[in-house]
């Protein structure tokens, strides 16, 4: 009953926002102010730099964790890479388990949650500020992040809840509670609750409002400016039909089109790179030199490093804990196998797709170079670009310079990526919500309705502080999650050693 009242309440607010844009405008302003004063301290805390530097400590936190996991598991991302590919191909899947969630499906679903605007717009921002050298650090951070993903996804499967009706729930909140209890460590439940709160906020913000907002900017960039709430209502309607109405067909179409778009994006990038094959050596030269000298960008080498690390962390979500939720549904007797599969995710997302974007921008000569010094020309901390564009506009211009009609394809890709990221995050948020408030139809619908309303708010308003806050919430998830990963990594090591031993001795057999 309470839930229904609540739904009615939030729906009314949503309708008010639609029917009166002017009113919405004033609501925006007051929400802005309220949020800014209430959450500003949290945002500046999460993104605050190490004293005396411009390096945000949260980025350091993620990279240090990835480095520790890399050494602790002795470069697992390189050792296990071929085995991961065999697992995804289904070489080790028991044919009698056909019809269950395969490794490939869990990977594809998790990927569609992370491949998105970060790969297209975010990389352009990184290269636009940090220069080509940012690409080097981005790739390095992506390779290290593979170890973080490996750790969290193994735990996600190991400590998931399996219910009597056959459904499963997994993710950091479950391994924080159950894993800590198993090791006799205190505070697991507290961390799990904290994680869930951040996860809900992150889902509504970075996984929702930010996506809606950016998708609207991309669409209005092509069709000319029009009110954001129109995009918001359309998006919210489609999201509502999928997550509340159970219209699986739309989601299924997206899930099919998104990988296709991803492949097409990489293919287009490859074509541009191959056409400019004579510049590949030069481009990599710029990337390596830029990585250690900065080639004139603001902040020099450190500036390039910060941009690269930051972009990789934002894009592949390694260490954030979100992927552990998506991966936990796979059917396997060995939790560690899902860890192996998940380490491909930062590789595909960052090392392949993000690098393609960066290479296209560099190779098509979007970044202007001073002919005399060979350094990049900067203005106000940014490299001056050939088209004057930054962010997604820069990526678009780079592709357009080689393939005239590509910006339209890119716009469709951005919208679809945004949509699939929203669907994934609505699920992550829901899992955290049900962890906090318990399972139940009304409780679930309450969250889903709130989620849809935030789609409209995200597209309609320019709620800077709200979006900052939600980005901060996603990274706050990483603070909690990585503390948990440090405490639970011996368990993963035990699983890993036992598995590798059985693999070597032939107890674990190939089926194909």
């Amino acid at each position, binding site marked *: 009953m309470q839930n229904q009242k609540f739904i009615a309440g939030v729906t009314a607010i949503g309708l008010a926002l639609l029917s009166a844009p002017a009113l919405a405008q004033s609501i925006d302003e007051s929400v802005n102010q309220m949020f800014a004063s209430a959450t500003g301290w949290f945002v500046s805390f999460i993104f605050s730099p190490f004293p005396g530097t411009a390096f945000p400590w949260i980025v350091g936190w993620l990279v240090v964790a990835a480095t520790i996991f890399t050494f602790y598991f002795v470069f697992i991302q390189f050792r296990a890479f071929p085995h991961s590919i065999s697992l995804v191909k289904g070489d080790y*899947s028991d044919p009698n388990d*056909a019809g269950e*969630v395969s490794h490939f*499906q*869990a990977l594809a679903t998790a990927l*569609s949650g992370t491949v998105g605007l970060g790969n297209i717009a975010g990389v352009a921002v990184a290269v636009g500020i940090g220069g080509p050298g940012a690409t080097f650090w981005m790739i390095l951070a992506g390779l290290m992040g593979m170890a973080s993903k490996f750790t969290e996804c193994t735990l996600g499967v190991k400590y998931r809840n399996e219910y009597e009706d*056959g459904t499963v729930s997994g993710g950091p909140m479950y391994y924080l509670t159950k894993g800590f209890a198993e090791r006799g460590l205190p505070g697991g439940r507290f961390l799990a609750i904290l994680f869930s709160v951040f996860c809900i906020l992150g889902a509504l913000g970075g996984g929702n409002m930010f996506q809606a907002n950016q998708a609207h900017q991309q669409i209005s960039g092509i069709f000319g400016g029009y009110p954001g709430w129109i995009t918001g209502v359309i998006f919210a309607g489609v999201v509502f039909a999928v997550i509340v109405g159970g219209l*699986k067909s739309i989601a299924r179409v997206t899930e099919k089109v998104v990988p296709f778009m991803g492949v097409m994006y990489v293919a287009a990038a490859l074509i541009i790179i191959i056409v400019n094959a004579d510049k590949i050596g030069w481009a990599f030269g710029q990337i390596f030199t830029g990585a250690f000298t900065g080639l004139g960008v603001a902040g020099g080498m450190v500036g390039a490093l910060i941009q690269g690390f930051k972009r990789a962390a934002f894009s592949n979500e390694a260490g954030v804990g979100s992927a552990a939720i998506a991966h936990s*549904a796979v059917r396997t007797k060995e939790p560690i196998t899902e860890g192996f599969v998940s380490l491909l995710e930062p590789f595909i997302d960052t090392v392949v797709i993000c690098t393609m974007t960066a290479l296209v921008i560099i190779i098509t000569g979007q970044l202007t170079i001073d002919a005399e010094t060979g350094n990049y020309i900067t203005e106000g901390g940014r490299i001056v670009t050939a088209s004057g564009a930054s962010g997604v506009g820069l990526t678009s211009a780079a592709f357009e310079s080689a393939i005239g009609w590509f910006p339209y394809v890119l716009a469709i890709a951005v919208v679809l990526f945004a949509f699939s990221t929203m669907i994934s995050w609505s699920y992550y948020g829901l899992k955290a919500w049900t962890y906090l408030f318990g399972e139940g139809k009304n409780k679930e619908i309450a969250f889903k309705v709130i989620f849809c309303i935030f789609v409209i708010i995200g597209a309609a308003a320019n709620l800077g502080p709200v979006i900052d806050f939600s980005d901060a919430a996603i990274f706050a998830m990483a603070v909690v999650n990585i503390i948990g990963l440090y405490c639970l990594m011996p368990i993963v090591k035990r699983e890993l050693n036992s598995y590798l031993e059985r693999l070597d001795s032939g107890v674990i057999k190939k089926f194909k």
Partner: protein
Amino acid sequence: MSEKYIVACDGSPASERALSFAVKQAQTTGASILIAHVLEWSPYSFLTPEELEERHKRRGEELDRAKKAVVDTLVKSVSDEGVKVDSVIKYGHVAETLVDIAEKEGATQMFIGRTGHSSIAARVFGSVAVIMAQIAPVPCTLVP
């Protein structure tokens, strides 16, 4: 060694014709019949997070439905004719899975019903009957 016939059954009238033809053969040769029901499934399809979560439950429901709605009644009808019968339900690519079953069960013959439609789709992509005619590991009878 006694003979074993595999009959591909999806509950369609065509598959029922194949089954009754196989039963007649079995009555004269003394062969046993294995009713094979394959649910089309690809491990490379894309699912939403919610579908992932419910997959194990849905699989159970699908197997249950297939057993009750298709397989059980067919098994009973064959057994009423006095032929020794067993059944198997699998997920996978239909033709490939039928071949797997035939090889694993040591089948001596296979029976497939064909619908007789010659739609463009079937011509382009091939029907199960056509594929079986090409890849069946044992003699395969197509029943019109």
